[in-house]
């Protein structure tokens, strides 16, 4: 009999944990509102941080001087009908299992409809061009500057790295799924099944581990590749150059250049999560 702590926790600790963490998520909610307000005001006041590093870009400048960000140029992406190069590359590099049932599905980067990705804007403004409405948008973890998932995690299994990446330590994850409830973008997936079952017959990347049943997973901005000086797998795989990746804190970086020249949107800005993923719509 395989008795795993997660199963055990599910059975025994479930009730206690749910009680405790529900509280913490409530508290988290208040803090979130407060934090975003505070952030806003400090931005206007010109805090020390933004003065030294920001140069107009107010948020999320880490002491490390790095904040990884991604800009997806939908103008280029939408031209490549049915292209899944970036998704395939990610799936391979991270050994992401494929399960048919949408409930059991594991997603790191995927395509979704405009009104799912930009829920708020699409409801506020019904007069969006028909073409855009039909465009499949790339969605992934936004590696928010103010990530609600990190706040609710009871074990600090998910955390924000100094470079702005919202990372996961699967060793610590107890599978409580509070982070999934907290994430407003649906960027997290739970391993309901043994992940290796979803990899049967697939070509695998033996350089990168799989996950175990009972943990939550999501896009990691390819931290393991960044550590080796490589670009994220999806960026590298994109043939049309629709994905730009770089350091948002560096005014000379490519992402900053792209953002300077284009009007870019971020998802659900009113929530104050401050995503690191930008979309150029048109």
């Amino acid at each position, binding site marked *: 009999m395989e008795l795993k702590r997660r199963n055990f926790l599910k059975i025994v600790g479930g009730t206690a944990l749910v009680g405790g963490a529900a509280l913490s998520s409530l508290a988290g909610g208040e803090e979130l509102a407060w934090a975003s307000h505070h952030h806003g005001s400090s931005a206007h006041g010109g805090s020390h941080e933004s003065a030294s590093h920001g140069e107009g870009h107010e948020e999320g400048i880490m002491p490390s001087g790095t904040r990884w960000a991604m800009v997806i140029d939908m103008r280029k992406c939408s031209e490549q009908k049915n292209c899944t190069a970036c998704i395939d590359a990610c799936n391979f590099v991270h050994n992401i299992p494929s399960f048919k049932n949408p409930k059991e599905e594991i997603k790191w980067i995927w395509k979704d409809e405009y009104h799912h990705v930009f829920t708020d804007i699409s409801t506020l403004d019904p007069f969006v061009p028909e073409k855009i409405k039909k465009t499949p948008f790339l969605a992934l973890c936004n590696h928010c500057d103010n990530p609600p998932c990190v706040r609710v995690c009871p074990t600090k299994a998910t955390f924000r790295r100094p470079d702005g990446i919202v990372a996961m330590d699967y060793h610590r994850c107890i599978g409580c799924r509070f982070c999934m409830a907290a994430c407003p973008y649906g960027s997290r997936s739970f391993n309901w099944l043994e992940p290796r079952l979803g990899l049967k017959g697939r070509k695998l990347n033996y*350089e990168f581990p799989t996950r175990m049943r009972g943990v939550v997973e999501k896009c990691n901005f390819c931290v393991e590749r960044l550590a080796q000086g490589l670009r994220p797998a999806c960026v590298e795989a994109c043939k049309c150059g629709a994905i730009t990746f770089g350091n948002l804190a560096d005014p000379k970086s490519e992402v900053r250049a792209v953002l300077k020249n284009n009007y870019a949107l971020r998802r659900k800005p009113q929530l104050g999560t401050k995503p690191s993923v930008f979309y150029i719509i048109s």
Partner: protein
Amino acid sequence: MYDSGKVIIGLVIFVAIATFPFWFGMGKAAPMPEPQLPKGKKECVESKEFMRSTHMQLLNEWRDQALRDGDRTYVNHEGKKIWISLQNTCMKCHDNKEVFCDKCHIYANVKPYCWDCHFIPKESKQWN
């Protein structure tokens, strides 16, 4: 009323439980395991003694250092820099779990959950 029968039964049970390890293996010796070291490799990231007693702690530290601090370089006692990765550093040399890890781990009944996620080097070529 002495209840000697009950007392004797009780004592027999006690002695049986107290001496359980002595009769369980019926005196069969369990020789000390000899893990096979990778051929052609002279040294590990630290000394043999250190690795023997402290590898789990080192792996623990590596894990936190790499994952949480994003620092993937380990400097060993000789000042040598080593790339932190169970999969891509340790298992590149120790490429056979059965003859290395399992030898001691089965002996001491230590079953870490490394292999739930990380690929077993030998297996990795077989399992799918």
